[in-house]
């Protein structure tokens, strides 16, 4: 069953067609990856699903229900659509712990008056969130040593991990990751790949990911959709996508694999 179904989605900014008639599906409890060259429309697609952009045409169905434009981003977050951002979007004025707790915002209820007094429901709720965040997320992502630090002082890899933690605190059903391993070293990438697989297997969360690192994409994805110039070229299993001539053309600008291989070999010998 597909937890997310995109049908005939079109989005344009003036004359620029960011997405044209995009259709694909995200099967439940899989790692589904969208790949494609820069500017193919991957992040635009994420923004449509988040509700930040309003597509001119097409529908997005989530858990079988349509997601019209009238369902605003905060509501979508409450429905279980969580995401991270391509350029890390942590809140610099807060500690790691507060950033993660912020993710739980939609699942909390305490109002202004009880917050002012920090008594009764507000206090109990904060404590419950703290416990949940500590025991379920901070422990799992191995970031307990930095919980009191301001996020600005962290390395890039750790910031990405804190962002993942914040998205997990939203108790997502679909976790959208925008380039989760971009700019990471090998060790950090392997950690992140392990976390993503664990999130799918142990937490039962569907992961929808945009990523350029082909090694990782082919290793951990169950399902891949390829986007180029705002259109879906193909979707399917990693092995099928890998050998699709259209995909190779989109990435390398040439569909003749044999001649490419020869060219690369020749260059290898010359070097």
């Amino acid at each position, binding site marked *: 069953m597909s937890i997310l179904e995109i049908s005939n989605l079109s989005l344009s900014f003036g004359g620029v067609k960011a997405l044209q008639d995009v259709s694909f599906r995200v099967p439940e409890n899989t790692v589904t990856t969208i790949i494609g060259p820069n500017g193919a429309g991957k992040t635009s697609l994420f923004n449509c699903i*988040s*509700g*930040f952009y309003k597509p001119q045409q097409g529908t997005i169905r989530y858990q079988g229900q349509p997601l019209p434009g009238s369902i*605003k*981003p*905060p509501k979508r*977050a*409450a429905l279980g659509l*969580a*995401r991270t*951002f391509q350029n890390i*979007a942590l*809140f*610099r*004025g*807060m500690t790691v712990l*507060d950033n993660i*707790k*912020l*993710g*739980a*915002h*939609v699942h*909390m209820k*305490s*109002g*202004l008056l009880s*917050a*002012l*007094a*920090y008594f009764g429901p*507000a206090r109990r*709720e*904060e*404590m419950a*969130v*703290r*416990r949940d965040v*500590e025991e379920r997320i901070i422990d799992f992502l191995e970031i307990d040593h930095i919980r009191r630090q301001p996020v600005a002082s962290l390395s890039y890899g750790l910031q990405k991990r804190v962002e993942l933690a*914040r998205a997990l605190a*939203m108790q997502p059903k679909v976790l959208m990751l925008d380039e989760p391993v971009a700019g990471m070293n090998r060790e950090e990438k392997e950690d992140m790949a392990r976390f993503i697989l664990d999130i799918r297997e142990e937490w039962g969360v569907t992961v929808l990911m945009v990523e350029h690192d082909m090694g990782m994409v082919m290793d951990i994805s169950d399902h891949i959709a390829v986007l180029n110039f705002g259109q879906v070229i193909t979707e399917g299993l990693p092995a099928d996508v890998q050998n699709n001539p259209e995909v190779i053309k989109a990435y390398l600008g040439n569909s003749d694999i044999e001649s490419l291989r020869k060219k690369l070999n020749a260059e290898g010998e010359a070097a």
Partner: protein
Amino acid sequence: MRIGDAKQSYEADEAIWTSQTQKLWLGFFLLILLVFPFVVDSYLLYLGCLVGIAVISTTGLNILTGFTGLISLGQAGFMGVGAYTVAWLSINTALPFPVTLVLAGLMAAAVGILVGLPSLRVKGLYLAIATLAASVFLHFIFAEWESVTGGMGGLSLEPAHLFGLTFQSDFMMYFIIVPLAVLMVAGARNVFRTRIGRAFIAIRDRDISAEILGINLLRYKLMSFALSSFYAGIAGGLFAYFYRVVTPESFPLSMSIFYLAAVIVGGMGNLLGGILGAAFMTLVPEALKLLTAALTPFYPNAPVFMSPMLEIIFGALIVGFLIFEPHGLAEIWHRIRRFFRLWPFRN
């Protein structure tokens, strides 16, 4: 020196005052506040009350500008709403003063929500201009709606009464103003331990991501405006009871700038900064006057030279702070604390 910092429960880890030493200092500070009115002269008592009112209003503006990132030039206007509400209620009704104060806060909060409505669309300097317009508009209402506000002449009110006590002297007012200031700062601190405070900071740091993470921007921006103007309304109400006369000129635009300066000099997004900034902005002009008086026996001409210089020196001090201490007075305090963290050992 601080040792044995391990916590046994999340409750203990989330507490504001985590060590015995901190609690001891806090108790000491509260004791000073309590003893203060009994040992100082009437001038210092007067200043103490002024600082208390300024702390409440600055804390309010800090919530809005420092924590939520919404610049407002309407603070004096909101204080005016609170002051006029108190004045009108105490003249025309028999409500006890705690009720009129709370109503003043609520009235200001309601006006704050109205003024805050444009904040969903405009931010930064544009919002500053929108709130400036609102403050001009409020000033106009204070001056022209004569049947309610008494026009340019303003309103005079009786001192506050409660349980047979009359809060006429500065001494009596001190015991309303300062406990309220402590309470309201504590309330603000509590807000920033909860989801609401986190939402405010998230809006300041990255409003678009905050929305995608589930924060309803309009709701929380307006909540910040309401809370901030509630604080301003209470401060204005206390102002009315303190001076017992309210005129349109009690709340000029320069007062809004005064509070904005207090927030910036103290440290934006830092509650301690708001307190220090309020004290600094209130006390430094007075200290400069005292300095002039102290110099007079040695230089008989000192008042002639100094009085036009006071404003300039005050301005220069503010500029100096912005250059050398851009994170505000609170940062100086944090440095001192860091120094003593492991004292007498080196860090």
